[in-house]
């Protein structure tokens, strides 16, 4: 079983901009069992329903850290019944949150992932048709995030 991840971008008004569920692309078996899709998230249905709530409940912690630390990457900020929660906040108060069910601490690879997402996000902002706090619906953005997920997680 590879780890599953739930990644979300939260705007300045605590509104969701983007969500993605996926699982680790590492350690894919060479002979794929039937019904096995690499990258498909393996959260249970009950966890899936909770994930947005878990991510949003960590916003209080991020808000507290926003002005007490000057780091972009906040590292592991919380955990919830075996789910680790990592956060990242940009200068413009955009929050990136990842919830993942791993026993190991994956803060390093997640940090690199977050940094790439940060650059990607500032490219989204260059689009004149995109306003801050709009949902990011671009297929290109989605593709790129998934590629980054494959690369780092």
């Amino acid at each position: 079983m590879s780890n599953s991840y739930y990644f979300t971008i939260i705007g300045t008004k605590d509104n969701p901009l983007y969500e993605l569920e996926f699982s680790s692309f590492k350690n894919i078996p060479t002979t794929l069992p039937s019904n096995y899709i690499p990258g498909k998230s393996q959260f249970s249905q009950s966890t899936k329903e909770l994930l947005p709530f878990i991510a949003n409940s960590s916003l209080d912690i991020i808000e507290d850290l926003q002005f007490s630390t000057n780091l972009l990457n906040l590292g592991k900020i919380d955990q919830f019944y075996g789910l680790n929660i990592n956060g990242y906040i940009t200068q413009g108060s955009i929050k990136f949150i990842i919830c993942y069910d791993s026993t190991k601490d994956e803060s390093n690879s997640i940090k690199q992932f977050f940094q790439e997402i940060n650059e990607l996000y500032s490219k989204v902002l260059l689009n004149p048709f995109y306003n801050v706090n709009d949902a990011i619906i671009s297929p290109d953005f989605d593709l790129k995030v998934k590629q980054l997920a494959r690369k780092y997680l």
Partner: protein
Amino acid sequence: MSDDSIIIPSTTTNSLSKLTINDYSKTGFGYNPSIGTQSNSINNIETSNLLISKKQIILSTSTIPIYEKLHLISKKSPIEEITLSSLLYLFSEIIQWQFKNSKNINDLEARLNGLGYKLGIKLIEMIKLKDGYKLLKRDTKILEILQFIHGPFWKFIFGKQADELEMSQNNNDEYMIIDNLPILNKYISIPKDYGDLNCCAFVAGIIEGSLDVSGFNCNVTAHTSTTDQHPLRTVYLIKFHSNVLYRENIRN
């Protein structure tokens, strides 16, 4: 939106309308906020293989892979320069456009401020990334962010640092950024009966937007304060809201 139309948020006007729960992306990529994670989760083997194959993928919806081409934070990308006259011509068109719609001088300044605000909330993200990527730091104190705006931020927009950064002697919530020769005002002469209009309200809007989105709520206004040496000298008066100062006192 019918099933036939392809969702191309970056180019079509459809993107400006809201996506509904009936809109599915044909390519399998693209987040739909009405559906949530189900809209873009990796559910079939084709999508999965596409991602694993490491080939460059070009979605049929996009001809120019914008996210690939631009490298914001690489050292080699210099700041591209444009001619001053074309910039100022554009700015004068903006002023004329807003002037037609505005009721009075204050209204015009508020409109220019609003335009700058929209720009500022986007710019700060990019410039901060370009400037402070190696440090991976945010600015969390009033003085830090003002120095950032006075220095790298100004340099990115106008090609030079702002001339002075001062704190008001009377009020501890007021700061001033002073530009001796604001580029945008270079060829603008204000008629006498327009009072103290300063078209750099646009720049004040940029400052206000970038401070606001960073968590420093404030009002920024542009004032002309002529000296003998610098006839166009402009003072940007930044007045922070009381909650910002309150937070600053607690955190330190």
